[in-house]
């Protein structure tokens, strides 16, 4: 748990659209192997930008990220949109990432399809699936890579409340069982508290780290069980205050 997986140093990001817009200011954080981290912040503050920079989809304006692993092959990124290939069936979509990386994880992916109730639909196409099923398929495709670092950008936002709780719990279990470091971007504080080891609270734009909470829950508690704890409410209040949720 104490081995660093990545280290972000003095990271700044500015977008140059007509005039420079500062999005991220002086972000410093070390992320450790096996950690489940959530990034919360108000809408549009730069959470996804930070995730994109970690995923190499975007470039930092200054500062740097040190990856203590081969970052090109071991990052799994699940975006808000399921981003499935409409011309590939469920099975081929699920295997896509592994195929691109020349990894033979067919049995593992088959098991994931069974676990998430998509095995019977493996010859169906994305247009024949519900929103929740698409999101689960996107998750299976990402997990199929057995990534060292799993980046989740509001992946459960399109699911109904029940599926959201159940799938986020599954992701938590899978990440913990396989020692996958996970960074989740979410606007849902309850989700962040129920899943994370640490929560990074970003300020409004230009975003800096306002607070980092190391959550002190019993390690054996499941995400759903955390929600019943008194600590849960305390964290909710603290983070809510950080995000100015209780004003007015």
């Amino acid at each position, binding site marked *: 748990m104490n081995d660093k997986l990545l280290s972000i140093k003095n990271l700044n990001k500015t977008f140059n659209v007509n005039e420079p817009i500062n999005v991220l200011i002086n972000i410093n954080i070390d992320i450790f192997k096996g950690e489940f981290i959530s990034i919360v912040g108000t809408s549009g503050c730069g959470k996804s930008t930070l995730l994109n920079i970690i*995923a*190499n*989809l975007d470039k930092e304006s200054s500062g740097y990220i040190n990856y203590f692993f081969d970052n*090109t*092959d071991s*990052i*799994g*990124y699940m*975006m808000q*949109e399921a*981003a499935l*290939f*409409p*011309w590939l069936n469920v099975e081929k979509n699920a295997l*896509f*990432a592994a195929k*691109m*990386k020349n990894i033979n994880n067919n049995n593992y992916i088959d098991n994931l399809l069974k676990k998430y109730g998509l095995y019977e639909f493996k010859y169906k196409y994305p247009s024949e699936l519900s929103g929740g099923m698409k999101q689960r398929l996107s998750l299976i495709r990402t997990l199929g890579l057995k990534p060292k670092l799993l980046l989740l950008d509001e992946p459960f936002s399109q699911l109904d409340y029940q599926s959201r709780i159940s799938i986020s719990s599954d992701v938590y279990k899978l990440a913990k069982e396989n020692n996958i470091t996970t960074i989740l971007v979410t606007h849902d504080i309850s989700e962040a508290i129920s899943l994370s080891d640490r929560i990074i609270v970003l300020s409004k734009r230009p975003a800096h780290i306002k607070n980092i909470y190391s959550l002190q829950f019993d390690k054996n508690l499941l995400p759903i069980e955390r929600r019943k704890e008194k600590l849960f409410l305390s964290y909710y209040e603290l983070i809510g205050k950080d995000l100015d949720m209780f004003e007015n």
Partner: protein
Amino acid sequence: MKTKKLLIHFLRFFIIIIFLISWELLSKYHIINSFIFSSPSKILDCIRKLYTNNNLFIHINVTLHETIISFILSIIISFIISIFLYHFKTIFKVIEPLLTMLNSTPKIAIGPIIIILFGANQNSIIITALSITLILNILTIYNSFLNTNIYLENYLKTLNVTKFQKLKYLVIPSSYKTLISSLKINISMTLIGVIMGEFLVSKAGIGYLIIYGTQVFNLTLVMSGIVILMTLSYILYLVINIIENKLKKYLT
């Protein structure tokens, strides 16, 4: 739903029958000039004669052969050129005005040049047909290459795929939908091009029949050519429709 479909079919058939009967009667009683407008019975007789003289299918085969070759060539060539231009976008930017200019030029105007360059043979007919469809196809396919799903593009970026993998797994499959939906327009445009080519230079084909009929003032032959052409065009449309539906199932 089924009754409505049947009603539509019946109405179509009914309108055609009424049209043919009116045409026949108007021509028979000299209300319209039967020399210019001919009549359904004369046209039918002309087609029957073409058939008994073993000429009908010779002309249809020639036109069909030229159409299918031009159609397939147009799709393959435009696809290859679009891939090339997608890789070298600056080249596309340089030639874009030229493509637009060429596309809006009436192709009949460049017909004589095509004949001089490629000779008075079937090649010129195919080139004329290509001149009508090729540029439009290139522009359509190229634009579909550019308009791939942004989320899928971002997803591929997270996988660090190569330019070739992006082309193979995203750009080309994304364009199938556009390509399939353009097949119907393509086949009719190709047919127009082939007939135009046959007007300019041919020894056989439906276009030849029409132009020959005009030259000898046999307007029944001209009308027969038009009827054969319309029937052929409709059959090709139906075939493409079947292909389109089959492809849609697999590719979209």
